[in-house]
């Protein structure tokens, strides 16, 4: 038999079955319930009629429960095995509806007199009961009809008297079907893990990442600098589409890659945003925060935080304090300004600070000559370059926001790749919404910003005031001057590395020595499947994140034996950023 004919045959059977049920339903709806045509026949079969009704309603109850339970269980199992959420309530709802529908159908089809008569025939009367029933309904009075009825009624009476023995009210033949269905459903739900669980987790992670990313993007989208929007239009569009792209990502690795791209774009903008001004603000802030005078300390702290408004207020307060203070205070202020002038790289600012210091010194001289403090306030008043300082704070604020958002996005990508829980992702979101505290944040210094500056990590590591340089700049460089270019900061010493204990190493630190060279072009190769661009050097955190995401995706597509899979995760645990430092 060909497949086509088998298909046709099966289709015909199914269609015939469906039509038969439809006809049965229509018959049920159009059914004319027949009453007893004769009291004698009704009385003869009364005991049986009672038992038939009792059994029918008990059976209806059992079947309604069975159908409800069966449908709900089947739906529960199906939904358990495919990707749909909120399954329990739907399955229960369908089950209850099925039970009610079935009960309603059974109510419509409740037994009438003819049904009782047919049951009697089935118990051994062999059409005698139905013959009497029909003849009595037709009111036939001919001798043969009377003779037939006369033959039937004694049999009906006899059967009615033995109805208790012949017809059981409780039919326990299929009693175990309901518990059996329940057991199968419970077994399936308990033993077989839901196939969609991984997908659901993945979707929840991406949903959470979408929220966090939206928050991070919201922090920087409206940033103003020099009276205009900080973000270029193209970057704004790109960031606007980030949550949508995360939502539409087919796989987690795509979402991770998209997050990293966005983070990189934000970081690039942060890098290009007047880096000298930001450094100057940080340097001044760090310098003045160490001043014993409270006004200077507060101004330094405001600069470090990048709080533009606060910087303006503190500068005004400091101006007032210097103007009204004695010569000692003025000299201290002048000294702080001179030190600040030496710390900044901006020549204009340096000149402004020197001029301010000289003005204050002149004021201090005047005070000494006049013999009273605050006497030459005109000379010292408004000596501080408040406008330049607030500009510095403005730059630091913007850069801080950008760095914070970039850091948040990178962290989010890393946690998403590692399959972090929703709470961990939410914590990443908290990080994204924090006000920028430091100018150079934790994402690691931009690797090799400008020629000759070296890796920011090296600088940060030395200064101690910046964030933790991760990635390429993590190592303590000692010398601090990199070789420039896109390379990692090359320090004068070696590189501390961790022998991964989980992969057979002892876990102790070893010092890997090597020659420090100016860098080479290297051999550029094209890797078809590498997440990194050939010839480029990316921060370790990003490379690790991408490889971790790829590992997740690969293992979800082609599962390994548990032992092998655990070895993979041990490997990633062993080489994850910061793993060695924690030990």
């Amino acid at each position, binding site marked *: 038999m060909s497949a086509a004919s088998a298909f046709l045959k099966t289709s015909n059977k199914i269609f*015939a079955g469906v039509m*038969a049920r439809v006809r049965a339903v229509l018959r049920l709806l159009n059914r004319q319930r027949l009453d007893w045509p004769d009291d004698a026949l009704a009385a003869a079969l009364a005991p049986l009629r009672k038992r038939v009704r009792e059994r029918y309603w008990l059976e209806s109850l059992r079947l309604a429960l069975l159908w409800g339970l069966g449908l709900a269980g089947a739906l529960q199992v199906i939904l358990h095995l495919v990707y749909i959420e909120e399954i329990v309530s739907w399955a229960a709802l369908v089950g209850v509806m099925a039970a009610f529908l079935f009960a309603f159908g059974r109510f419509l089809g409740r037994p009438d007199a003819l049904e009782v008569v*047919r049951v009697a025939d089935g118990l051994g009367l062999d*059409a*005698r009961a139905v013959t009497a029933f029909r003849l009595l309904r037709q009111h036939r009075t001919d001798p043969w009809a*009377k003779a037939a009825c006369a033959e039937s009624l004694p049999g009906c009476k006899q059967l009615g008297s033995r109805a208790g023995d012949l017809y059981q009210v409780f039919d326990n033949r299929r009693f175990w079907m309901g518990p059996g269905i329940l057991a199968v459903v419970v077994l399936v739900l308990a033993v077989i893990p839901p196939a969609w669980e991984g997908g659901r987790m993945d979707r929840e992670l991406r949903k959470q990442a979408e929220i966090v990313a939206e928050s991070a993007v919201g922090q920087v989208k409206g940033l103003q600098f020099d009276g205009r929007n900080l973000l270029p239009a193209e970057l704004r569009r790109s960031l606007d589409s980030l949550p949508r792209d995360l939502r539409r990502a087919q796989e987690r690795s795509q979402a991770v890659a998209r997050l990293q791209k966005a983070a990189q774009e934000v970081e690039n903008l942060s890098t290009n945003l007047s880096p000298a001004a930001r450094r100057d603000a940080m340097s001044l802030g760090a310098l003045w925060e160490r001043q014993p005078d409270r006004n200077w300390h507060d101004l330094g702290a405001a600069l470090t935080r990048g709080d533009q408004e606060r910087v303006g207020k503190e500068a005004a307060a400091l101006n007032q304090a210097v103007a009204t203070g004695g010569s000692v205070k003025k000299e201290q202020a002048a000294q702080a300004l001179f030190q600040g002038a030496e710390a900044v790289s901006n020549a204009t600012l340096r000149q402004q600070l020197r001029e301010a210091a000289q003005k204050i010194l002149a004021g201090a001289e005047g005070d000494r000559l006049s013999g009273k403090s605050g006497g030459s306030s005109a000379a010292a008043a408004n000596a501080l370059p408040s406008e330049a300082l607030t500009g510095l704070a403005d730059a630091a604020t913007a850069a801080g926001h950008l760095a914070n958002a970039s850091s948040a996005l990178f962290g989010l990508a890393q946690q998403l790749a590692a399959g972090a829980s929703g709470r961990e992702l939410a914590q990443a979101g908290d990080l994204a919404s924090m006000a920028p505290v430091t100018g150079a944040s934790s994402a690691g210094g931009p690797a090799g910003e400008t020629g000759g500056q070296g890796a920011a990590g090296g600088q940060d590591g030395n200064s101690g005031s910046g964030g933790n340089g991760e990635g390429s700049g993590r190592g303590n460089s000692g010398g601090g001057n990199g070789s420039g270019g896109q390379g990692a900061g090359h320090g004068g010493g070696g590189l501390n590395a961790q022998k991964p204990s989980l992969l057979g190493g002892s876990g102790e630190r070893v010092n890997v020595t090597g020659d420090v060279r100016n860098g080479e072009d290297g051999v550029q190769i094209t890797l078809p499947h590498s997440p990194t661009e050939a010839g480029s050097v990316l921060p370790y955190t990003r490379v690790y994140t991408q490889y971790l995401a790829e590992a997740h995706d690969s293992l979800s597509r082609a599962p390994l034996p548990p032992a092998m899979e655990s070895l993979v995760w041990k490997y990633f645990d062993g080489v994850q950023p910061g793993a060695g430092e924690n030990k």
Partner: protein
Amino acid sequence: MIKQAITAFNGASEPEVHLLLEEVGQRLREVDDAIGQAIVGQQEVVHQVLTALLAGGHLLLEGIPGLGKTALVRTVARVMGLTFRRIQFTPDLMPADITGTLVFDRAGSGFRFEEGPVFAHFVLADEINRATPKTQSALLEAMQEHTVTVGGVTHPLPSPFFVMATQNPLEMEGTYLLPEAQLDRFMFKITVPYPSAQELMAIAVLTTGAQVPQAPGLLGPGELAGWLQLVRQVIAVEDVLAYATRLILATQPHHPQAPERVQRFVRYGAGPRGLQALVLGARAEALRAGRAQAGFQDVRAVALPALRHRLLLGFEGVAEGISPDDLVREILTTVTDHE
């Protein structure tokens, strides 16, 4: 008493109907006993033969040679008190040899009709499958219309008229299968089984002695004709008729209620004549049991002889060696009393 009751059954009262049924039952038991004096065993066959006779149907008896088919028919005819003719079907038998022919009457003024052996109450068509289909078909009109038409003139056959044909299922060489139209006209096809050891011993005792017992004649044509009318008075309500109808429909291979094996192996199922055979047979069964009403069990009792020759197997059914009896039994288990 019974003759009067039979002739006036239309006006009988209810007690008279009961009495009539009782007496018919008693007479039929006497017929059974009378046949049993000459025929050893074969109670089921005798039962089905008498049921078919009560229903006014023709019979096809199938069995290997020597099982007493001819003796049974002869005995039944004797007990019934009816005229009996035997026609031995051979390949050179011509239709006119059965129906009769026109012969020139030297004494008269022309041709006169010379009746053939079909002009009898009981006609035994022995080994009917040995004649050609043309000759077999000569019985068609006689069986259905109870008339014979020769030379443009229709001649009525005696009433009651029964054809009892026998065929041998083993010797198929030089035989012609009965055409479907002819098969359908037989009310029952009765398979004569091989006797048991005890029955064989009884046959040896009964038939090899000095005197071979003969069954007495008990009835006459009038009484049997009355019974034929009584059968049709037996009540079969619509539920019973519906059951018989569903049985017939279940033999049709294209009907959705037909069992899977019927759909697969049967080429054609039973037709309206099959339904008539079922219902009349059920009524006759009820009458034999002394009941005024036919039930589902009566229908089931006659289903096998009434339907087995009406199921025409397809190629696959023949190749698989499917027995129509098994298919009928399957239908009986599949179709329920009530829909």
